[in-house]
């Protein structure tokens, strides 16, 4: 067990294990130790300001330079999917002309991910504390918190939490809540920034980073909800102790959502320490390595189950196998199911969730989905695979956002990890998993692209 002096403060956070139907914290510190998900269980609903302050203390009185020092010393990386160091966004925005815009992205458009809404719903003050600190680092006095519309949206918990903070006269920025459409690409940072400025919630073609110039013409920092909640934690425990709660080359604790063949799909786990994917799945009740694991989101990377089981869930370890923690999603494929079937449904879903504005998504992704469906059915032959690979090469790098490239990444990892299945499917042999019901559930209400391509003429 590692002793972390920064966490041993008597008046610091309590480190307790929490397990409820909604979220569970497991620790890599010997005894279960969790940070963000410690405290009241999910049954108690949102943690109130009084309880939050009692457990974590008041928000430390850092000025802008102090917060930037925290970000520099901790190497806090973005938790929305891109993993971009937050300090680089902040410093770029500060060097760029204009008063910066700060948007906290809690839209969590990855359909199976639950971590950001879990934080907003149960620990809203951690998100708001972190947003408040980030606002100081940028010298801005107003912050937009962006969520998706819908029944699952956490905006109610956030607005209640904000009301209590205003009544308590905390040294906070002015808060504005924004709700956008619940679509896959609508959570992309340029889509969020454009929507907040009054435009449509679709990705923008940009020749320079948002932190240099966003849709408003001002430098725009879009930061994920978990990222700023981590900043709130770090401001209490210190960057060194916070950093040590991750792996040596991958800083800090991490929130994870499980999907697929697990005991509790949608369960959110908090990983502190150098835990492996096997540790996370064991915490859920999975007893043996599955057939394969999809890491990072729907448009993520497949890893063979035996390898994944031993792989630490951090940026460095996953990066060595061309995967990334992404938004923290782990999808589990059981031995009885077919990875090609699962991927075909995911690719079809992702093709339908394009914004419909770039040729590569409109013309390319549906064809890739068709070919994947044929491969899954066993009606594709070798020539079809070559055509499909050429199509993927054409798609790569030609969209305004990362959506088409991410689908191509999923496609390549599918062909690699399920190579033996591909061979069987191409030979037309029946696949053991062909009749297995879907494991990784994609939303079924695909309503078509945001923009109707028939308006193109």
């Amino acid at each position, binding site marked *: 067990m590692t002793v972390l002096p920064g966490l041993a403060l008597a008046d610091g956070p309590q480190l307790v294990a929490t397990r409820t139907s909604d979220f569970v914290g497991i620790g890599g510190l010997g005894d279960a130790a969790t940070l963000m998900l410690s405290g009241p269980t999910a049954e108690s609903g949102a943690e109130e300001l009084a309880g939050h302050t009692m457990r974590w203390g008041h928000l430390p009185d850092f000025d802008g330079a102090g917060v930037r020092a925290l970000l520099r010393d901790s190497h806090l990386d973005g938790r929305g999917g891109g993993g971009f160091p937050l300090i680089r966004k902040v410093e770029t925005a500060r060097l760029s002309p204009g008063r910066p815009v700060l948007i906290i992205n809690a839209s969590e458009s990855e359909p199976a991910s639950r971590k950001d809404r879990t934080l907003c719903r149960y620990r809203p003050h951690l998100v708001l504390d972190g947003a408040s600190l980030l606002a100081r680092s940028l010298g801005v006095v107003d912050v937009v918190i962006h969520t998706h519309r819908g029944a699952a949206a956490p905006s109610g918990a956030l607005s209640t939490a904000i009301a209590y903070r205003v009544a308590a006269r905390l040294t906070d920025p002015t808060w504005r809540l924004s709700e956008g459409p619940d679509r896959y690409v609508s959570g992309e940072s340029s889509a969020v920034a454009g929507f907040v400025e009054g435009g449509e919630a679709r990705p923008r073609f940009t020749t320079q980073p948002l932190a240099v110039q966003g849709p408003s013409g001002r430098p725009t920092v879009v930061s994920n909800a978990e990222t700023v909640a981590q900043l709130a934690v770090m401001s209490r425990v210190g960057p060194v102790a916070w950093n040590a709660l991750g792996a040596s080359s991958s800083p800090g604790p991490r929130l994870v959502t499980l999907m697929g063949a697990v005991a509790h799909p949608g369960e959110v786990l908090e990983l502190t320490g150098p835990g492996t994917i096997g540790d996370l799945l064991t915490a859920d009740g999975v007893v043996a390595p599955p057939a394969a694991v999809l890491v990072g989101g729907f448009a993520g990377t497949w890893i063979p189950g035996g390898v994944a089981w031993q792989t630490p869930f951090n940026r460095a370890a996953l990066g060595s196998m061309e995967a990334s923690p992404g938004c923290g999603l782990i999808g589990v494929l059981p031995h009885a199911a077919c990875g090609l079937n699962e991927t075909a449904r995911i690719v079809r879903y992702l093709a339908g969730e394009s914004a419909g504005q770039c040729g590569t998504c409109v013309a*390319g992704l549906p064809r890739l989905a068709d070919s994947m469906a044929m491969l899954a059915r066993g009606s594709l032959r070798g020539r079809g695979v070559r055509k499909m690979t050429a199509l993927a090469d054409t798609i790569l790098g030609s969209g305004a956002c990362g959506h088409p490239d991410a689908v191509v990444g999923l496609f390549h990892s599918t062909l690699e990890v399920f190579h033996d299945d591909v061979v069987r499917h191409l030979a037309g042999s029946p696949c053991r998993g062909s009749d297995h019901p879907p494991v990784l559930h994609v939303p079924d209400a695909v309503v078509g692209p945001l923009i109707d391509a028939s308006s193109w003429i």
Partner: protein
Amino acid sequence: MSAIVNIDPTLCRGHAICALFFSDGVELDQWGFGRVVDGTVDSARLLKRARRAAAACPNGALIVVDDPTGPDGTGPSIDSA
């Protein structure tokens, strides 16, 4: 004077007119959507073609901007600011 040439894929509708005027700098995919071969153009001859192609694109998808970080530019780059 060097310039940066981009095709905004959200505006490109595959008319492929850019490839007529700026065949050295644009390649077309199987559907006719253009992609810039090299984003930085610094010869006067190529730059003239790029500007003509930009003017001809019915959707304004081909974008030519003077490169502020280039040899003749005056604006600061992010790295040097």
